[in-house]
């Protein structure tokens, strides 16, 4: 294969990474933007989404497409419920004090990882894709499912944007983000908003994982990479900025695809992590954001 098509393939792979990353990162960004909580356990919500998708694919009979559709609905709900529970039992009692919540979510990370190891085991297991067809390009065939992932992710992101910008629920969320005390004075149940936002963040990570799991197998340690990449995306995009997060996800996903194809993947990760550290040091509001961390 010559250079041009090879680059195209790298970019298409990068698009799939970007699509999934954008979903996971928007979840992290929402939680930070509205609750001011840095959720270190976010990657484990992603992992739980993938692992629970495997369980659903085992329990639901019939063609893979039915089981996959069920996983697409059930897994985000399940993970969202766990997230809401964690918020109510732990984070709320810490009064969302920044350093205490980070330590607590590190604890949550280990608890969820161990739970997955104990109930699911150390093996990586595949989940069948809902459909299999190849899109034949002049130079190579490409998985139709991967293209569907990109489309699905775009739809969900559009939905999240509409929810935040146009709906009454979004208005309440933004009011809480803007001023928690005033929102409370206007009769908004801030506790419920926080639990809901944490559930939404976890649910988005789980949804991203369900979409990726037919391509990448489910494993109990799979949460680490999405966590770091989501952090990178959210920081570069500017914390709490939805548009910035999506743009940064595209930037990171595409460059990850290209660099990993032509150079070593580890080198790509080293460059990305150092870049983020330096962005935080010299431009703490991110490349697109307005507020500092």
């Amino acid at each position: 294969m010559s250079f041009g098509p090879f680059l195209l393939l790298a970019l298409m792979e990068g698009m799939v990474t970007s699509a999934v990353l954008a979903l996971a990162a928007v979840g992290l960004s929402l939680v930070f933007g509205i609750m001011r909580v840095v959720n270190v356990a976010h990657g484990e919500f992603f992992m739980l989404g993938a692992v629970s998708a495997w369980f659903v694919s085992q329990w639901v009979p019939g063609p893979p497409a039915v089981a996959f559709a069920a996983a697409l609905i059930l897994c985000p709900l399940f993970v969202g419920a766990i997230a809401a529970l964690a918020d109510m039992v732990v984070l709320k009692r810490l009064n969302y004090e920044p350093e205490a919540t980070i330590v607590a979510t590190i604890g949550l990370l280990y608890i969820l990882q161990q739970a997955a190891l104990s109930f699911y085991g150390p093996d990586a297991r595949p989940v069948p894709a809902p459909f299999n067809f190849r899109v034949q390009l002049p130079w190579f065939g490409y998985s139709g499912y991967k293209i569907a992932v990109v489309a699905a992710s775009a739809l969900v992101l559009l939905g999240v944007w509409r929810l935040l910008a146009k709906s009454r629920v979004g208005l309440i969320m933004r009011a809480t983000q803007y001023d928690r005390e005033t929102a409370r004075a206007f009769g908004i149940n801030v506790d419920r908003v926080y639990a809901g936002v944490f559930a939404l963040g976890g649910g988005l990570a789980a949804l991203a994982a369900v979409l990726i799991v037919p391509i990448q197998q489910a494993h109990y340690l799979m949460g680490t990479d999405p966590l770091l990449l989501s952090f990178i995306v959210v920081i570069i995009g500017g914390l709490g900025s939805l548009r910035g997060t999506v743009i940064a996800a595209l930037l990171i996903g595409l460059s990850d695809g290209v660099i990993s194809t032509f150079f070593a993947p580890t080198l790509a990760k080293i460059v990305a992590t150092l870049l983020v550290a330096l962005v935080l040091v010299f431009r703490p509001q991110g490349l697109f954001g307005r507020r500092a961390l």
Partner: protein
Amino acid sequence: MTLSTRIWALHLAVLAALLAGSVLLPAYHQTNVAKVMVLATYAMGYNIAFGYTGLLSLGHALFFGAGLYGAGLLVQHAGLPAGPALLAGILAGGAMAAAVGLLALRTQGVAFMIVTLMFAQAGYLTILYNTAWTRGEEGIVIAREARMLFGHDLSADLPRYLAAFALFAAGLVVKLWLVRSPTGRVMIALRENEERSRMLGYDPYARKLAALVISGLYAGAAGAAYGLLFGYVGASLASTQYSILPLLWVLLGGAGTVLGPLVGALSMFYLIDYSSAFTTASLLVVGVALVLLVLFAPRGILGTIRERWLKWLP
């Protein structure tokens, strides 16, 4: 008894008890306590940054790893004897802390945590990337012949215990002296109210950098000693988990107490050791301990004791 005598008497008594362990403890526990003393030295360094100066770093594994690999690679590839390698490891930890601190200390709070986390992750990935030298996840096993210090074989039980004790004792005495000195008082002032200490004429950036470098020297010393005493230098020892563990030990023992890191490391080590008899879920123990600590005992064991009974505990 004056306050100062009382404080020194308590800490020297703890050291005497640990020294007595070299003859009283059975072999299995001797190895464990030797390991705990090295890890507690690491945690003491972490405590200087976090407990006393208020710098919550999530990247100390980078400094521990710098000591570990600084010593390990020199022994393995340059054939350096254990003594100079240990010194090189200590300096590597301090130098790494200075480099990270120069940049990371421009940020505060959550941003500082994430910046240190990212630097440590980049360091961990660099170790994996240079597999030819570091042998990555698999790690380097340091041969017994290379682990001789002043004619003593560090792979044997008793010399290893005594070497770990010497490291810990030196660390403890220096730390006790440091936190009661004027420098230590300024560190605590920075933790309590940075603006007020700035108003009093102290430079927060320089003081925090100094505290972080001292912390890095401790971490480097512990890392180098870990590699030389236990003969293993592997990437897992520089992973994020090794940034979290000293935080856990310090929180458990009591942040901002001199003996807290030892108490925390010792109780956590034996908690996991005993729980492994009936469950393999060691991660669960770590996770639950962290959550319970921040929820119910944010001051840790010695912090609570100090608050209730022993007000004079440093």
